[in-house]
C-alpha cells in the first residue's frame, strides 16, 4: 500500500465526499468528522481497493457504512435538541466564503435546491446524492447502499417527482431562461 498513491487517487474526491457527508449528517462539523474518518479508513484498507474500479464509489461506500454504523446512532441526542430548536441544520448555509461556482449556483437559488433535497427521506436523499449529484451509476449506488439496482431506480424516480413538485418555481425559471 502506497500512501502517496492513495492520496493522488482519493483526495480529488474530497469535495464529493464532504458534500455527501453534509447531506447525510446535516451539519458542517459532523460532515468534516465523517469525511476525515472515511479517508482514514480508506487509507488503512486501500489494499482492498480493486484498481480500475470507481474509487469515488468505493469511498462513498465506506462513508455510507460508517454513517450507518456509527454516526446515525451517535446523532441520537443532538438530533433531538436540534428539532427542539425548530431549525434544521441541513438548511443552514456552511460558513465559508463563496467562490465562483457558488455564485453561479446562487443564481438558481441554491438554497431552495438544498432545502428540497434535505426534505427528502434519507434513503431517497442518498440515492439522489450518489447518482444525480455525484454521478454514480445505479449499479454503483446499489453497491454503496447494499440494495438491488431496481430499488435505487425506484427511489430516484420517486425522489425526482417530489423534487420537481418542490422546485417547480425554480424549474420554471430555468425553463424560461432557456427559451
Amino acid at each position, binding site marked *: 500500500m502506497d500512501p502517496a498513491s492513495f492520496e493522488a487517487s482519493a483526495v480529488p474526491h474530497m469535495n464529493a465526499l464532504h458534500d455527501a457527508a453534509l447531506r447525510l449528517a446535516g451539519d*458542517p462539523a459532523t460532515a*468534516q468528522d465523517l*469525511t*476525515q474518518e472515511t*479517508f482514514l479508513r480508506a487509507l488503512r484498507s486501500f489494499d482492498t481497493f480493486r484498481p480500475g474500479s470507481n474509487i469515488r464509489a468505493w469511498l462513498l461506500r465506506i462513508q455510507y457504512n460508517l454513517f450507518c454504523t456509527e454516526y446515525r446512532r451517535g446523532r441520537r441526542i443532538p438530533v433531538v435538541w436540534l428539532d427542539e430548536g425548530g431549525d434544521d441544520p441541513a438548511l443552514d448555509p456552511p460558513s465559508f466564503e463563496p467562490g465562483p461556482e*457558488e455564485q453561479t449556483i446562487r443564481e438558481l437559488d441554491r438554497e431552495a435546491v438544498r432545502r428540497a433535497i434535505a426534505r427528502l427521506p434519507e434513503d431517497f436523499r442518498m440515492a439522489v446524492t450518489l447518482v444525480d449529484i455525484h454521478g454514480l451509476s445505479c449499479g454503483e449506488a446499489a453497491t454503496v447502499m447494499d440494495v438491488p439496482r431496481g430499488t435505487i*431506480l425506484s427511489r430516484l424516480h420517486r425522489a*425526482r417527482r417530489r423534487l420537481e413538485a418542490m422546485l417547480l418555481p425554480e424549474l420554471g425559471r430555468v425553463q424560461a431562461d432557456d427559451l
Partner: protein
Amino acid sequence: MTCEEFQARLTALSLGELEPAEAAAAREHVAHCSECASGVLLDRQLTALLRASVVPAPEAARSSILAALRAEAARLPGRGAADGTEPRAAGSPRPPRRRHWVALGLAALTAAAVLALAVLLVPSPDAGSPLAAAWKSYHRQPVAAGTAPTEQVEHRLYAVLGPTAHTPDLSDVGLRAIGWDARTLAGHLAVAAEYRDAAGRRFMLMRWRGELPRMASAPDGEDDQLEVYRWGRHASAWWQTDGVVWCLIGTVDEPTLYRVAEHLARES
C-alpha cells in the same frame, strides 16, 4: 407506449438505464407527445439543478483532513500494512492462524451486551440546559482558525470568568489551540476554545459561570466530580471549579478525552 408507461420509465431513460428496445420505444413516444417531451425537459433541468448544488469542502476542512491523512500515513507501520500489523519480512513464513472462535464469539456477545446497556443507561442533558447548548454549539459552531474576540468582549469575559477565561495551553497533552471566541449558552456568557491534536481531531473547551447542570437520570455527585459521557464518536467531560463550569467535548475515544480533562482539571 402510453404516456403512463413513459412516465414510469422517465428516470431510467434519463439515466440511460433502459434496455435498448425500451429506450427506442420511449424515444418514439416522446417524439410524438408534447406533454411527455415537456416532462423530459423538466427532468433534464432538475438534473442540472441538482448537479449545480454541490457544496465544495471549505478550505479549513480540506487542510485539516489532509493533515490527518498524512499523519495517519506516517504512522502506518512500514507504510505498508493496512491493518495496523507489522509487515512480515520477505520470505518469512506466515504465522499460524489462531482460531479462537469461541473466545471471539463470547467477546463479541459481551461487547454487544455492554453496548446495549450503555445505550440504555447513558443519560441525556435537559434540553434547555447549558450542557445541551454546549453540545449543540460544538456541532454547529466550530471556532474558526485564528478567531479571537474583540478587546471589549475579551474584557467582559475576564470580568465574568476571571482568569478562567484564559485559553489553557494544552501542548503538554498534544493539543494545539487554533482559536477562541465568546458565545451564549442557554443565557450564560461562555468562552469557547478549539483545539486540534496531531491527527486533526477536534476538541472544544467551553467555560461559563453557573451551576453544573445534572444529567437527566444521572445520580447526584460531588460538585468537583469529573463526569465523562460518550455518544457515538463524540465524548464529553464536564466539571465545576469555583463556580465555573468546564465542558470539554471531542471527537475522540474516551481515554484520550479523560486524559485531557484530568490535565485541565488539575491545572484549573
